[in-house]
């Protein structure tokens, strides 16, 4: 199977970053493990972005260039992957990230009311981070727990059967316990 060439991408000047200067040994080892599972290194792109994001909370331009260097793939192709997905953050996010499900089963279970309450309590709109850098509020498509709607994902974990008291309780705990790096 001959490889498809991408002349357009090759013409775009690439900022050269040595991945060893940016990524930690731990990150590199985890990414190399993912590479070993596929025929081509570029296939580990999405895994690599997630690995780096797990360590740094988001994917900066510098991280992006470093991953592309490690995977020996065009930065443009990796950026095309990074910007495609809802769960890859190309901007800094808060210590905690809330993804509120806005799909149909949650909509039928008071999504508008829940959304307004979350926004008011945090004092931010969707896509924003609180001024103290604690919480980023985002939406998410159907979380696959329509039987326990309405639901959200807090730092990757499901919180189901939401109502106003349970949201207040959750936000209270977030403020009390601080960031996950504390």
């Amino acid at each position, binding site marked *: 199977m001959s490889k498809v060439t991408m002349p357009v991408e090759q013409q775009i000047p690439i900022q050269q970053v040595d991945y060893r200067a940016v990524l930690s040994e731990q990150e590199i080892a985890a990414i190399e493990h993912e590479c070993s599972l596929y025929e081509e290194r570029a296939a580990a792109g999405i895994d690599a972005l997630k690995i780096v994001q797990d360590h740094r909370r988001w994917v900066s331009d510098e991280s992006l260039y470093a991953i592309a260097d490690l995977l020996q793939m065009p930065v443009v192709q*990796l950026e095309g992957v990074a910007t495609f997905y809802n769960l890859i953050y190309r901007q800094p996010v808060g210590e905690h990230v809330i993804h509120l499900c806005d799909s149909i089963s949650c909509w039928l279970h008071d999504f508008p009311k829940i959304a307004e309450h979350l926004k008011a309590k945090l004092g931010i709109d969707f896509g924003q981070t609180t001024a103290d850098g604690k919480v980023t509020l985002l939406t998410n498509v159907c979380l696959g727990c329509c039987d326990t709607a309405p639901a959200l994902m807090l730092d990757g974990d499901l919180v189901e059967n939401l109502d106003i008291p349970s949201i207040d309780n959750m936000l209270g705990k977030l403020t009390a316990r601080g960031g996950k790096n504390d």
Partner: protein
Amino acid sequence: MTNRPLTEHLDRSNPQDIKAYQSSGGYQGFKNALAMEPQAVQQQVSDSKLKGRGGAGFMTGMKWSFVPMGDKALNQDGTPQQKYLVCNADEMEPGTFKDRLLMEGAPHLLIEGMMIAAYAIGASVAYIFLRGEYRLCATRLQQAIDEATKSGLLGKNINGSDYSLSLHLHLSAGRYICGEETALINALEGRRANPRAKPPFPQVMGLFGRPTIVNNCETLCNLPSILNHGAQWYSELANSPDAGTKIYGVSGRVKNAGLWELPMGATAQQILDLANGMQDGLKLKGWLPGGASTDFLLPEHLDIPMEYDAIAKAGSRLGTGGIIALDDHHCPVGMILNLLQFFAQESCGWCTPCRDGLPWAVEILSRIEAGKGSQDDIDQLLKMCGFMWIGKTFCALAPGAVEPLRSGLTYFADEFQQHIDHKGCPYGH
């Protein structure tokens, strides 16, 4: 013998325990398969009349039959060609949560199903393409993969045979279009997940250009029992043209939303009864039979069997079998707007009707819902249903979005008209 092949192994407390799974007959189906020729396994699955459970309902055995086998699957140097099996576990259809139940509760069932499918098509590497939000599934599947590997069920020369299989878990990062099989293949290769043109079909030229089968998670979970108890047993589980059982579900304002394994062809009324009906004070106004991308049906359709042909005859699709119930206190226009917002956001942007048409439909629906719509808006929406229909778009995403829109415009025409005539939402949205 069980009549619930999908949920009999559900174990909420210790689902990754391989010994518990084996003691209830687990991995027997794979052992039976391993004693057969791969083509014979394909034949048994064809005979069972199993149809794909991801939504399209294509015959699983026929899908496999397009994969080159034997002498037709050799490289130029005479070595066997690399082939792949991929489990599509990118469950993101709104209102659908059946695959999550199976992966969380019976991870070994999926792994055994994948082993059977991989053996049948001669694949030596398999991937589970799992949506990134399904964290508990990821943990349990990885534990189950590790246990199966430790037990010698995965790896080189399984059970002393010539057959080797390695199985890996791939976590995606949230994008509905990855559920489309060619987009999924692009995603697995580390490319932007736009769908690919067909032909070539993945069965011949898929992942990394190799023959590849992509099967839905629930489809694969049916295989162990078919190989264990036989094709005839499986097809006779259902008193319907469609074979076997199905995980049906219902969500919305019902008393007890959830999932139930029932013979194919169970009615929506039966499912609704299992959910104890609508919540007090609410009446069913309409329902989507199988996720967001299926046409609305009405209460008068509740007694139609939930099988592919019967639901198609009624004007909709079985889809994923996850019913979404619309009650009489929620605005149909608001519901359709929510559904179209989902599809507009999740469009990959590759083809114009989808990329530009869906946001346009959202704009018009928002206007109508806000009481600022006109008669022209309705006409425009009807026209757009044609512009985004099958044959006008690159893949099935936009036609899927059209389904609830076109049927909603028909069944809820009065409600649309009220929004325009009274310049507001009669439901107070």
